[in-house]
C-alpha cells in the first residue's frame, strides 16, 4: 500500500512537471496548442517509452504496465477520470445555451451535417477495412464513427480572431455549429456507449435493446438537462447564501461528480452527467465565477488528463494500423469538409465560404481524447485504434491551421444573391490606451457593463483576451491586444456599443477624481516603507 502510494505520488510529480514544461514549449515556442505538448509529454514519459526504464530504488519502472486493459495503473487513471469530469463540467458551463437555441439556422445545419457525415464515414471506413468488423452497428465501427465527429474549435477561434474574421458570417456560423456539434457529439456518445454495452454481451444485433438504450440515453440526457435548467437558478440562489464563491463553485463541482456517477450507473458515460450539470448552471449568474474559481483545479488536473492520454499511445501497436490511420483521417476530414460545407452551400455561402466553414470545423481536441479514453478503458477499441485516434488528432492539428488561413484569403464567402444582407458588414471601434494595465482595467469595466445589460460574456480563449458578447441574435466581439481594445459589432448595434463605452469611460472620471483625492502615492509609499523598519510614520 505504502509503496503503491509512493509510486503514485512520484508519477504525478513527473507528469505535472513534464506536462507543464512541454505544454509551455508547444504554446510559446512552437505556436501549437498546449494540449499537443501535454500529449507529447505523455508519449515521452509513458510506459512505452522512458517510463519503462528500470529504476533500482523503485524496484521497477516508474510507469510499469499493469495487467489491465489500460496501460496505466487504476490509481493514476482515477486522476484522469476526475480530470475529464472537470473538463466537461467546464465545457458545459461555457456553453452558450441561448445562442445554441436561437442562433440555430445555418449553424445547426452545418453542425448537424458535419456530425452525421463524419459519423457515417468513420463507421463505414472501419467496416470496409477490417474483416472482423461485420456491419455498421459493430461496436468498434460505432465507436470510430463517434470518434470522428468531435470538433474542437479552440484553434479555429484563435486563428479567426488573429485574422479579424471572428465576426465574419463564416466565423459566426462555425462557432454556432461547434456548440451544436458538442451537444450532438455527447448525446451520440451516450447512445453508443449504451449500445456497445449491450452488444458486447451477446451475438448479433439486439435491435430492441439498442432502441431501449438509445431512448434511455436520450431520455436521461433530456430529462436531466430540463430538470437541471429548471432547478439550477434555485440551486444557485440557495448556494449564494453561503456568500462565498469558493463554497458555491466547489459544491457545484460536487454535483457534477454526483451526476457523473449517476449517469454511469444508468449505463451512460460519466462525462455526460458532468456536461449536463455544467450546461444547466451555465444559465445562472454564478456560472462565470464558478468557472473562474475552478480554474485552479482545472489547470492542475487537465494537463494530467492529456498526459495520461499520451502515455496510452503504444507505438508498437500503431505500426500495423498506419495505413488504416491515414484512410480514417482522410475520411474524418472529408466528413467535416463536405458534411459542413454542403449545408453551408445550401445556406447561401459560395464555394469559398463553404470551404472555409469546413476547414474551420477540422481541428480536434479534448473530446476526441475523452471518447478514445472511454473506448480504450471499456475495451471496445484496442491500443491500435486508440493510436489511430491520436494520429487523426495530430494530423488535424498540423494540417488544419495553415489550410484554414489559406482558405480565408480572398474575397467574400457569401454568394452574390445574399450579398445585400451580408452580415459581414462589421464596424470596428478601436480604443488605444496609454498602457496595458490601463487597457486591462477598462476591458474588465466594459465587460461588466455588457453583463449589466444582461449580455452573456464568453471568453473564447484561455490565453488571449478575446470575448464573445451575446444576447439573442446580437453578437459583439471584444479583442484586447496589449494596450489596444477593439470591438466589432454590426451597424445596428453600433450606437448601443458606443453609448455603453461612453458611459463606462465617463465612470472612469469618478474613479480618477477618487484617486486624486487619495493621499499621494509617494506619501503612501513612504508610509509603507517606514513601517517596514518598525519606525512609526510621522505623516498622518
Amino acid at each position, binding site marked *: 500500500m505504502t509503496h503503491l502510494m509512493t509510486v503514485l505520488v512520484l508519477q504525478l510529480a513527473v507528469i505535472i512537471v513534464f506536462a507543464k514544461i512541454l505544454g509551455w514549449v508547444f504554446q510559446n515556442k512552437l505556436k501549437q496548442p498546449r494540449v499537443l505538448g501535454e500529449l507529447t509529454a505523455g508519449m515521452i514519459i509513458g510506459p512505452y517509452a522512458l517510463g519503462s526504464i528500470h529504476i533500482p530504488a523503485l524496484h521497477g519502472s516508474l510507469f510499469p504496465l499493469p495487467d489491465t486493459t489500460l496501460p496505466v495503473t487504476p490509481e493514476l487513471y482515477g486522476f484522469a477520470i476526475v480530470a475529464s469530469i472537470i473538463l466537461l463540467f467546464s465545457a458545459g458551463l461555457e456553453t452558450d445555451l441561448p445562442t445554441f437555441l436561437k442562433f440555430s439556422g445555418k449553424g445547426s445545419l452545418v453542425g448537424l451535417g458535419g456530425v452525421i457525415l463524419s459519423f457515417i464515414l468513420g463507421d463505414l471506413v472501419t467496416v470496409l477495412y477490417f474483416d472482423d468488423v461485420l456491419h455498421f452497428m459493430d461496436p468498434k465501427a460505432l465507436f470510430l464513427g463517434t470518434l470522428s465527429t468531435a470538433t474542437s474549435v479552440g484553434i479555429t477561434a484563435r486563428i479567426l480572431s488573429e485574422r479579424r474574421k471572428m465576426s465574419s458570417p463564416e466565423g459566426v456560423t462555425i462557432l454556432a455549429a461547434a456548440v451544436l456539434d458538442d451537444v450532438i457529439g455527447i448525446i451520440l456518445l451516450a447512445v453508443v456507449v449504451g449500445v456497445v454495452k449491450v452488444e458486447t454481451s451477446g451475438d448479433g444485433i439486439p435491435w430492441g435493446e439498442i432502441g431501449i438504450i438509445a431512448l434511455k440515453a436520450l431520455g436521461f440526457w433530456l430529462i436531466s438537462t430540463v430538470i437541471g435548467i429548471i432547478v439550477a437558478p434555485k440551486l444557485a440562489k440557495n448556494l449564494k447564501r453561503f456568500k462565498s464563491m469558493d463554497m458555491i463553485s466547489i459544491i457545484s463541482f460536487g454535483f457534477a461528480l454526483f451526476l457523473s456517477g449517476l449517469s454511469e450507473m444508468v449505463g451512460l458515460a460519466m462525462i455526460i452527467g458532468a456536461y449536463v450539470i455544467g450546461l444547466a448552471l451555465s444559465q445562472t449568474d454564478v456560472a462565470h465565477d464558478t468557472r473562474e474559481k475552478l480554474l485552479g483545479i482545472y489547470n492542475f488536473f487537465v494537463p494530467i488528463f492529456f498526459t495520461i492520454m499520451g502515455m496510452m499511445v503504444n507505438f508498437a501497436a500503431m505500426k500495423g494500423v498506419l495505413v488504416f490511420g491515414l484512410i480514417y483521417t482522410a475520411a474524418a476530414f472529408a466528413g467535416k469538409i463536405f458534411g459542413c460545407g454542403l449545408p453551408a452551400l445550401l445556406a447561401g455561402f459560395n464555394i469559398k465560404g463553404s470551404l472555409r466553414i469546413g476547414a474551420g470545423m477540422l481541428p480536434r481536441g479534448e473530446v476526441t481524447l475523452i471518447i478514445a479514453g472511454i473506448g480504450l478503458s471499456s475495451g471496445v477499441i484496442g491500443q491500435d485504434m486508440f493510436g489511430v485516434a491520436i494520429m487523426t488528432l495530430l494530423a488535424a492539428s498540423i494540417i488544419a491551421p495553415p489550410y484554414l488561413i489559406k482558405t480565408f484569403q480572398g474575397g467574400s464567402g457569401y454568394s452574390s444573391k445574399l450579398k445585400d444582407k451580408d452580415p459581414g458588414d462589421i464596424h470596428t471601434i478601436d480604443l488605444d490606451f496609454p498602457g496595458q494595465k490601463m487597457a486591462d482595467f477598462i476591458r474588465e469595466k466594459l465587460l461588466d*457593463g455588457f*453583463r*449589466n*445589460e*444582461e449580455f452573456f460574456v464568453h471568453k473564447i480563449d484561455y490565453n488571449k483576451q478575446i470575448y464573445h458578447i451575446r*444576447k439573442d441574435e446580437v453578437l459583439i466581439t471584444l479583442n484586447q491586444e496589449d494596450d489596444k481594445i477593439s470591438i466589432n459589432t454590426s451597424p*445596428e*448595434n453600433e*450606437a*448601443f456599443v458606443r*453609448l*455603453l463605452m*461612453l*458611459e463606462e469611460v*465617463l465612470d472612469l*472620471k*469618478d474613479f480618477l477624481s477618487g484617486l486624486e483625492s487619495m493621499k499621494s502615492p509617494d506619501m503612501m509609499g513612504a508610509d509603507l516603507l517606514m513601517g517596514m523598519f518598525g519606525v512609526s510614520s510621522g505623516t498622518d
Partner: protein
Amino acid sequence: MNLKKILNTNLVELELKGNSKQEIIENLLDILVKAGKVKDRSLALEAILEREAKMSTGIQQGVAIPHGKTDSVNELLACIGIRKDGVDFKALDGIPSKIFIMTLSPSTRSGPHVQFLADISRVLTSEGMREKLINSGTKEELISLVVKGHA
C-alpha cells in the same frame, strides 16, 4: 426591446415649460415622479445632474437623453418630452435641444438600460422622424411614431 411596454401617454409631454437645462430636467423628472415610481426625487435628480456634469447628454441634432442610475427606482423608467423652441442643453454640436428622452435605471439591478437608450436614439437619427415627432399633435401619435420607427 418592447418600447410600448415602457412608454405610455402619462410618460409623454408635448410642451415642456422649462427654459434652461436645469428646468427641463426637472420637468422631465416630474413626469416620472407623477407616474409614481420614483421613491426619492432629490436622489434621482442628483444622479441625473451628476451624469450631466461629466458630459452633456445633448447628443446631436437637437436630441438630448438625460439619464441616471439611482436606487430610487426599481425598474427602468423613461419619459419623452418636446420643447419646440429648443433649449441650450450644452450639446456637443451646439444646436439647441428639442427632443428629450429621460431614463432612470436602478444602479444595482442589471437590465437592458443602455440598450433602451440606444434603441430609442436610433429612431431619432433621421431628420424626417425628428420633424414628425416635434410636430406630433397628440401623445398617442408620438408614441406610435417612436414604436413604429423602432420596428
